[in-house]
């Protein structure tokens, strides 16, 4: 398997540095004084009950949500209102959404070549070559001329992953990538993400899939009510959660799996 995750401009060992991050939606505080340091090549899984702020946290990293207090530094660039910084960060950070968000009026191939052509100014031929390479990587190359609505949910999500990869990001963010999928399609997407992780991509993944966390994560972060409550290696976290809230959460989540046999 090729290592197709080139390092970006910043060669600092820390990919993402978050300090004192607070975010409010109106009067409601969604993130409370969050500190987080992500090293290059690290794979992080963020879990927690709904409303805990996990999605908000990763959406702050590529400025889909602006923060009011604290600092976020991605690959050496600080995220502020400065548009150039924002654009620099976004070209280097790929994101995969729960609802896929593929462009319905473009083919699979066009979805993948759009940003390389218009943002990285590649030629069409070059962009298409890169796109086919990544589409093969996610095992969906034969669907290239089709439209998103002609594909199943699992296929669409794999295209979304390929689309993000075509920009050659150094960091990939996943916002509950399998939550909108039918159960039989979850595996194909998780397998794709596993491949990516094995190649050394820096990943932050918000997910409920605990099996994935156990297989891939270097660190599991548990969030609740806007704070990081606990972070640990997967083995340590799952076998020996330290806080009450983590214990409750795991109890709920893992019981479900155990009941299913």
């Amino acid at each position, binding site marked *: 398997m090729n290592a197709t995750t080139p390092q970006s401009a910043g060669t600092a060992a820390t990919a993402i540095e978050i300090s004192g991050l607070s975010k409010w939606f109106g009067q409601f505080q969604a993130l409370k004084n969050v500190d987080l340091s992500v090293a290059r090549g690290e794979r992080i899984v963020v879990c927690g009950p709904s409303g805990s702020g996990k999605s908000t946290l990763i959406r702050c990293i*590529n400025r*889909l949500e602006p923060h009011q207090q604290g600092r976020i530094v991605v690959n050496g660039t600080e995220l502020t209102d400065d548009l150039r910084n924002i*654009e620099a960060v*976004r*070209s280097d*950070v*790929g*994101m995969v*959404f729960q*609802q896929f*968000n*593929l*462009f*319905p*009026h473009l083919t699979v191939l066009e979805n993948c070549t*759009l*940003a390389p*052509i*218009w*943002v*990285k*100014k*590649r*030629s*069409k*031929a*070059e*962009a298409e070559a890169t796109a086919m390479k990544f589409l093969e990587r996610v095992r969906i190359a034969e669907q290239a001329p089709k*439209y998103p*609505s*002609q594909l199943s949910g699992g296929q669409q999500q794999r295209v*979304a992953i390929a*689309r*993000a990869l075509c*920009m050659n990001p150094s960091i990939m963010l996943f916002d509950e990538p399998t939550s909108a999928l039918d159960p039989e399609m979850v595996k194909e997407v998780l397998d794709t993400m596993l491949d990516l992780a094995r190649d050394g991509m820096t990943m932050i993944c918000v997910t409920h899939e605990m099996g994935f966390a156990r297989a891939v994560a270097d660190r599991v972060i548990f969030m609740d009510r806007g704070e990081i409550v606990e972070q640990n290696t997967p083995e340590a976290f799952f076998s020996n959660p330290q806080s009450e809230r983590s214990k409750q959460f795991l109890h709920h989540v893992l019981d479900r799996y155990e009941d299913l046999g």
Partner: protein
Amino acid sequence: MLRSERFRNLFYQALLLAIVVGVGWYLFSNTQHNLQTRQIQTGFGYLSREAGFEIAEKQIEYQASDSYGRAFLVGLANTLLVAGIGVILATLLGTVVGIARLSPNWLLAKIASSYVEVMRNVPLLLQLFVWYGLFTELLPSVNEAIAFGDWLFISQRGFRYAWPAEHPAWSAVGWGLLAGIALALGWKSLAHRRQLRTGLQWPVVWPSALLIAGVPLLAWALMGAPTEIDRPVLEGFDFLGGKVLSPEFAALVIGLSTYTAAFIAEVVRAGIMAVDRGQTEASMALGLSPGQRLRLVTLPQALRVIIPPMTSQYLNLTKNSSLAVAIGYPELVAVSNTTMNQTGQAIEAIALLMAVYLTISLAISAFMNWYNNRVRLIER
């Protein structure tokens, strides 16, 4: 047999046919009788008879001695002119207002909403009366016309403006404009192909602007650079020279445009809002600039939703131009009305009128169906 479904189907259809034919025959025989008693002729022969009335505004040559048929064509030309200009103005204004309603600037958004809520809920006829009243009563008389230098005079008689005098150069300018537009489109296509090939983007906006402005300018210069201007000059009771926009025309166009713009604004707004928020987020996450987002992701999807109701509004505007008869602008309905009153042949006149509007409606519907089929999002 009475219970057989087939029999019942046939029976109902036969019944309907019988009713329609029966009523039709009854009306028809009455009509014949009445027409005879009143000595009104039938048939479309009247179209070649002399009309005998003047038409104040015309786009094609016409005199009172021309036929009713020609008068009809004059009216039709006027209708198409008003509808065409109205559609363009309404689309421009409506799009601006629609986008303004979605603006993050609260003041702008509120003003745009108020515009829509006011214009939509007042009958068009009253709006036309108000505009017409403003233009005819509130504007000064010809002698005291509001003057902008000596090239624009606004009075009760309308907007009188200076215009370049007749000269062959000006038609060359017209062709130059078309050529400029064609060249600009060619440049755009060339730049696009280069971008596909190499990834580099040539500028498109200012070269296009240069071409569209420059080629007509070149044509003007080459053909003798005429500078003579036909200025309106006050002589006696009215102006001579220059061109005029009558109060009727101005009121009709402004009234139609501002009214339809309110509906178009809603159509545009619905179209833009129909594009999923996730689409914007995905394009932001990929690093596209706001302009690129709008052009490549939002607009293509929005237009699919916008075009069908938009063409419906265009149709409404064309039908609403018939209100011109209330303020005296000689478009199709007004001319037909005069014809009807003079010849007494109401049936033919109205039938002709309906036929014209139906043709326009069907043409617009056909276009919309074609467009819809072409841009349909491919379903599974």
